[in-house]
């Protein structure tokens, strides 16, 4: 890959990665459900924590300017299972983020029709998950065909839109919101929970790190671009949130916060403008996430962690269609669930864990490879990476202490997925043949037990009445499981995938 991009391109990558669809959805629950107007403080806190973490990214990207980002850093620092875990977490965060983007598109479309045609809006609102699925399928097909995506023009458009929003807020003479959480110190848990929930608003900056191999003079340009992106994003988000909570009172609203605020500031046009912007941002993020998850899966397949079939390239379009479609199936499944708050937390937690691993990798590499050339060094080492790890842990647990059931559900799901990830890694180490024989044994037992159960029900020994359909389903299942079990047990394929 040739290094053709300069500092301004790197900066645009960082900004275009950051300014995305998240601002159109995550502030809603943070404001109406978690922290109220203190949500503004949460964004400030999130920005500062992000800056801490980005210092570690800066040092690592300057020292190891290779494709792969977090996966490359953790592999260099720890190798083996930790790199695999960070790759999986990054993949999961992309998949959850993509599902959220699809749902945001449906939501913004619903809001647009609320202004244009309320009858159509009620239908769209009820079928939001279906619309999200349709959008995912279309974008997956476009990705397989190799369609080019909209690039940095979105950044300039959004910056202009937010500038209009902020100017309107100042012109409107909004009532300054009270951002101090009350009561203290209990109100702080809501602030931290909102920080964790809205943290994905800052994630996109690391898109710059992923493109490190294309940037000229990477050792200097990447750290500068990351820091400048962070310094632009923080006041922008703070200002937008400050204006939004200043014009929209707390209450029971179904519409997105930013759309409501824009409608209050620019009646007749503001809400529609932001709905269109939200839809564009969602589509762009969804397309990017589908490509990112495919790229991560292929990277791990190349290293032998996942099946080689994921490296398959479409004969006609030259795109990684297997990895794209496989990931999109997960995205569709998650979008069908339709729980925006759950997906917001899930996307956040996955990335926060990756951030913690990156900070730990920085600490380890300073010890393991002290003579590695580092054009940029994280200031106030070791306090910066240690603070990054500590704040990551705080962000992970604070919504739990707040008692947010969405966060608890997301964390439990995350832990379950992590267990599966570790199991997958361990099984890969054990080898395909042993896993196949073990699965065969389990299948054989399942099939025999089901056949036995069906027989006992039919003979009246077990007092359950089965419909004819259920009976045939159970018989079919027993036969297939027994056959599959025998075939797996007698397999002769000792190779690992």
């Amino acid at each position, binding site marked *: 890959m040739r290094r053709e991009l300069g500092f301004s391109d790197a900066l645009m990558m960082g900004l275009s990665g950051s300014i995305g669809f998240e601002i159109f959805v995550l502030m809603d629950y943070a404001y109406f459900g978690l922290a109220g107007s203190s949500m503004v403080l949460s964004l400030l806190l999130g920005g500062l924590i992000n800056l801490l973490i980005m210092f570690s990214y800066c040092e690592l990207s300057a020292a190891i300017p290779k494709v792969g980002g977090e996966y490359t850093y953790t592999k260099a620092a720890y190798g083996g299972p930790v790199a695999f875990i960070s790759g999986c977490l990054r993949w999961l965060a992309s998949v959850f983020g993509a599902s959220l983007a699809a749902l945001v598109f449906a939501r913004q479309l619903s809001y647009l029709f609320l202004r244009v045609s309320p009858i159509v809006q009620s239908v769209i609102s009820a079928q939001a998950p279906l619309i999200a699925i349709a959008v995912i399928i279309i974008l997956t097909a476009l990705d397989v065909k190799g369609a080019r995506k909209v690039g940095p023009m979105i950044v300039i458009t959004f910056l202009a839109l937010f500038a209009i929003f902020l100017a309107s807020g100042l012109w409107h003479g909004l009532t300054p919101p009270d951002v101090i959480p009350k009561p203290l110190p209990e109100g702080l848990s809501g602030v931290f929970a909102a920080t964790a929930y809205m943290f994905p608003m800052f994630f996109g900056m690391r898109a710059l790190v992923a493109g490190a191999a294309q940037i000229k003079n990477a050792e200097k340009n990447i750290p500068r671009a990351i820091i400048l992106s962070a310094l632009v994003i923080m006041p922008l988000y703070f200002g937008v949130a400050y204006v939004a909570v200043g014009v929209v009172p707390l209450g029971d609203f179904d519409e997105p916060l930013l759309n409501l605020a824009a409608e209050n500031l620019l009646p007749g046009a503001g809400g529609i403008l932001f709905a269109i912007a939200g839809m564009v941002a969602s589509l762009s993020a969804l397309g990017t996430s589908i490509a990112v998850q495919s790229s991560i899966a292929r990277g791990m397949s190349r290293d032998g962690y996942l099946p080689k079939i994921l490296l398959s390239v479409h004969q006609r379009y030259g795109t990684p269609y297997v990895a794209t479609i496989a990931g999109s199936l997960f995205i569709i499944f998650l979008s069908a669930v339709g729980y925006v708050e759950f997906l917001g937390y899930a996307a956040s937690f996955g990335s926060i864990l990756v951030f913690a691993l990156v900070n730990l990798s920085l600490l380890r590499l300073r010890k393991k490879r002290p003579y590695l050339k580092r054009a940029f060094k994280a200031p106030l080492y070791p306090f910066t990476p240690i603070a990054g790890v500590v704040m990551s842990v705080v962000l992970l647990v604070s919504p739990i202490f707040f008692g947010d059931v969405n966060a608890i559900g997301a964390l439990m799901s995350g832990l379950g997925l992590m267990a599966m990830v570790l199991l997958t890694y361990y099984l890969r180490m054990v080898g395909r043949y042993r896993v196949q024989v073990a699965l065969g044994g389990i299948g054989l037992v399942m099939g025999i037990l089901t056949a036995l159960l069906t027989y006992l029900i039919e003979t009246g020994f077990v007092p359950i009445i089965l419909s004819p359909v259920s009976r045939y389903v159970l018989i079919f299942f027993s036969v297939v499981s027994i056959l599959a079990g025998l075939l797996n047990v007698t397999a002769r*394929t000792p190779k690992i995938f």
Partner: protein
Amino acid sequence: MRITIKVIRKAFAAAVGVAQSTMGMLAVIAAYILHSDPFGLRAWLYVNTGFPVPLYVLVLIVFGFFSITSGLFLITEDEESP
């Protein structure tokens, strides 16, 4: 292509693998339907309030993933023998 026992076995294993993976996917979908009740399908399936939904969801998910994995192993079984 010479029809050998290996070829027959591979074709048969692939067919059984497809059937098992399909069964597994249907089980996961059934678990989702039981849990989330999209479009009011629970009522259509006569699932009443006393039905132990969480237990069946867990059983279906575990069975589903075992079946999908086992089926995939059969479908991707290597032709080479040791």
